[in-house]
């Protein structure tokens, strides 16, 4: 059933479909890396799932104390890079480079167990990733690890490959930002990108604020936790990894949107219209006994509202606004195929209920828009009849946070990828849409020259 033309060798003794397409010596395999700000997905091409998902703050620190030394301690939860890298001082830059070098070294020698010199590398990129970050990634790979070649490929386009299409509207909800990129016939329409910082990090901030204001800490006591005395949660207890833990385990996206006017405090509305139960989250504090964090049910249900809040602010669009903006920017004749193939990727999109709520909100805006929404988006509102989420077909076979990686693996196994930068020809720059000129092979370019 599977393509014999591309399986290079049949291994004796192993009859699984999975292993057949690898060559024994692994020369054909490329290494696919999706370097996010919090998690790096790594693995070999031709495999349907990444081998590992590595947090970027793990094993980066060493410590020495009176009872000994340790070398691979997880440091504090922190992003690997920021989106404004170019404005940072060069000492921070060095720190980023060294941290990335250690992570990549770890990936090759502890996780993938591969010799870096023998496999080409495919790196997934987002259209708004700063060029300096790409250059640093290329520099570390070429100078420290001596990989033979690196090719940067659009993550959004690769994600579309996993549904068998090359046209669609891809929404990447990550940690630092949320990006909407329309793609038509395998061409990413980068000028029509929309992005917004309302993503994982914004939700962490909102969750933190809600917990500080409305959550409670129950210190160890002899009374049962439902009647034990409660205090406010000190800010220092809500470290970023505690917040991330709470967000990824018990937060959901409410299926019930509440629309209040902008003057009233939404907290009361949320309290009334939320169904989730209150929850006790164990937390470690100094001292004997178990402490609990009391998380009100509405807090964990409504912390994600920040992603859907329309702020009338051009810089902080909600997911729905970004999608509609992108549709408006694009030419009218391709809007219909785009809206019929909407694909959600990214870690933040894996929150339970996110898909359903997004679908609902989109339909609501398109079918019954408010006055300001009518003004902004009048040209695209009637497209609601064509709105389909592209993964209805396959469903949940591939998870959203690894879908882009899987697309990269698919592309690598088909021997296609973005423009390849060979180590011998690397001169410090990397190909990027912001710095490249039109292809020389283009007919119009020839005429101009």
């Amino acid at each position, binding site marked *: 059933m599977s393509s014999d033309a591309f399986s290079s060798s049949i291994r004796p003794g192993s009859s699984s479909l999975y292993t057949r397409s690898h060559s024994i010596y*692994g020369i054909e395999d490329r290494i696919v890396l999706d370097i996010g700000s919090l998690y790096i997905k790594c693995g070999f091409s031709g495999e349907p799932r990444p081998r590992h998902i590595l947090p970027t703050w793990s094993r980066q620190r060493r410590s020495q104390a*009176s009872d000994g030394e340790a070398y691979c301690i997880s440091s504090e939860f922190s992003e690997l890079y920021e989106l404004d890298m170019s404005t940072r001082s060069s000492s921070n830059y060095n*720190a980023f480079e060294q941290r990335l070098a250690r992570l990549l070294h770890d990936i090759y020698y502890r996780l993938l*167990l591969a010799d870096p010199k023998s496999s080409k590398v495919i790196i997934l990129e987002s259209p708004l990733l700063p060029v300096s970050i790409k250059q640093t990634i290329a*520099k570390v790979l070429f100078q420290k690890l001596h990989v033979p070649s690196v090719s940067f490929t659009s993550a959004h386009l690769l994600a579309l490959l996993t549904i068998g299409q090359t046209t669609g509207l891809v929404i990447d909800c990550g940690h630092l930002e949320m990006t909407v990129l329309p793609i038509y016939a395998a061409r990413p329409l980068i000028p029509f990108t929309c992005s917004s910082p309302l993503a994982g990090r914004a939700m962490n901030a909102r969750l933190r604020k809600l917990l500080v204001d409305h959550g409670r800490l129950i210190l160890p006591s002899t009374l049962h936790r439902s009647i034990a005395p409660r205090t406010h949660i000190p800010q220092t207890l809500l470290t970023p990894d505690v917040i991330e833990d709470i967000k990824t385990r018990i937060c959901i996206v409410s299926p019930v949107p509440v629309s209040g006017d902008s003057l009233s405090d939404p907290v009361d509305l949320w309290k009334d219209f939320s169904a989730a139960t209150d929850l006790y989250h164990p937390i470690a504090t100094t001292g004997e006994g178990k402490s609990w964090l009391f998380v009100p049910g509405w807090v964990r249900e409504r912390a994600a509202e920040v992603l859907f809040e329309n702020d009338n602010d051009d810089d902080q669009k909600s997911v729905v606004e970004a999608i509609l903006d992108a549709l408006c920017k694009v030419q009218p004749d391709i809007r219909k195929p785009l809206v019929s193939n909407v694909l959600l990727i990214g870690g933040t999109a894996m929150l*339970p209920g996110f898909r359903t709520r997004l679908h609902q909100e989109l339909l609501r805006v398109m079918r019954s828009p408010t006055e300001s929404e009518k003004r902004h988006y009048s040209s695209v509102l009637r497209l609601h009849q064509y709105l389909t989420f592209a993964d209805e077909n396959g469903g949940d076979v591939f998870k959203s946070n690894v879908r882009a990686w899987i697309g990269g693996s698919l592309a690598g196994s088909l021997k296609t990828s973005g423009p390849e930068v060979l180590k011998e020809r690397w001169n410090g720059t990397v190909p990027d849409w912001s710095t490249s000129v039109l292809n020389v092979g283009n007919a119009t370019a020839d005429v101009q020259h």
Partner: protein
Amino acid sequence: MQPATPFVYYHCACPDFFQTSGRSVDASGSRDAANDSSSASDRQPYVPFGTSIATDTDFSLFPLSRLYFCEDCHQIRCPSCVQDEVISYYCPNCLFEVPTASVKSEKNRCARNCFQCPICQNTLSVVANPDIPPKEPGSPEDETKPSVNPYHLFCGVCRWDSQEVGITFEKPTSLAMQLQKSEDASPDIKEFDHLKEHFEKFLRYNTPQSLPTSFLSLSSSGSFSKMGYNTSMQNRKGNVARMDDVGEYKASEHIPHGDMDVMDNLINIQEDTTVSNLEQRFNQVYDQPYDTNQLKPQRIHLRIKRSKRCRTCRHILIKPEQKAQATRFKIKLVAMNYIPNITMQMLPRKTLPLRQNVPTQLILKFTNPLYEEISVTLATPQQHQTKGDQVDAPEDLRKPWGRVTLLSPHFTVGAYNETIEYDDELLYGKPSALSTPAAATWENGVYEKRNNYTSILIEVVPDYEGDFKFPLLVNYSYKSDEDQLDTGGYEDEDGDDDDDEGGQKRSQTLERQPEERTKTYSFWCVVGLGEVVQ
């Protein structure tokens, strides 16, 4: 956070990567990468700045135990600047050495009986259920009874049981084989293969015979050229089956989104003990279940033994033995055997912690591992608060850390001798010919000079609260009577250098002396003394 304990960290300048002359000396001859605008490749000479050194994340500072020394280059190498090569693969649990072909086919996991607990990631042990008798090989298959297997996995730490997820085994060996079928039946594998076929069909039609240009490379560079490339536009007439875009695709596998079920579950819980956390979920990437009851045990990941090589001269610095059980090294060029070991000691009747603005004296002990006597010169950088320095440092942390006075910046340390360890008199000893009388010569700043170590006095006056660290430049030289062809020495410009030009190293050609030559080497280190209190 525990208060910092005193330490001495050595700095490795990683000279292979950071040459200020701008030429990369990488032995593989890669192109000069310093022409580009990024300033990171043009590193300035290193001068550490006291309190601004974040020793837990500064990746160029290492304790002596982590450093290597390349004899030919006569330089320190750190774990970041050596080149690693794989020697062998082994399973950390059963210590079985895995051949390279199996490593790739089993995807870097142990193919025998090693599994890790999905909850706590500790090793699982195989346990037999005493109630169920093991299957007799000759007995007939009993159709009426459901097959109950006697063996299952058990975690000794968190007491997780594989029977909870329905995994049991017929035999206690080759467990991975028994689970192979269920692993291969995963729907994402089938869907992936189906997608591959779909795209291969499309690429076959659209790729011209000459060059396999990909549709991805054109589009991602932003060009909007027609997908049918210029060459194939001529044979447009002949090629009937061209497709401009991939056709309709129907997924072969359909799994309904479990989103709403997960949400219904989460809405009603009161405690999150049955909800998996990210680390557990990432062990099962294809599934990433929210429920801990759906987590399956994974095979244990293999590890490698590596050999380390110097990047400039390609000599092997560390070579372990191939067998997994052996912990010895065939080649072991570690810095401990070449550069002096610096440790600290408090004077009797004085204790830590240091006090602010109170001069404190303490002892730095230099132990010489070489067979020749070395002469050591120490220096500390002069502290500036001006902005016009060449080294880029964090702006807010350039204040002087305090005053450090080296009472004897220049001294010698005796040679190492195997008999030192055997001669009790020398080791514990009474003053003998090799050591100088104790308290009388404190005025020289040398507290004690014995065998192969020398202890000197330093005085510190911390200016600020917090962790107290200061950098120290150590320059030592010795007469070596080896016959070497290359000039291996790096010489510092001046022994007593108190300005912050940093560890500039100019290699000089020394006069070739047939029998002996003076070798020098200098390095920076950071000495930390713990917290300073009021």
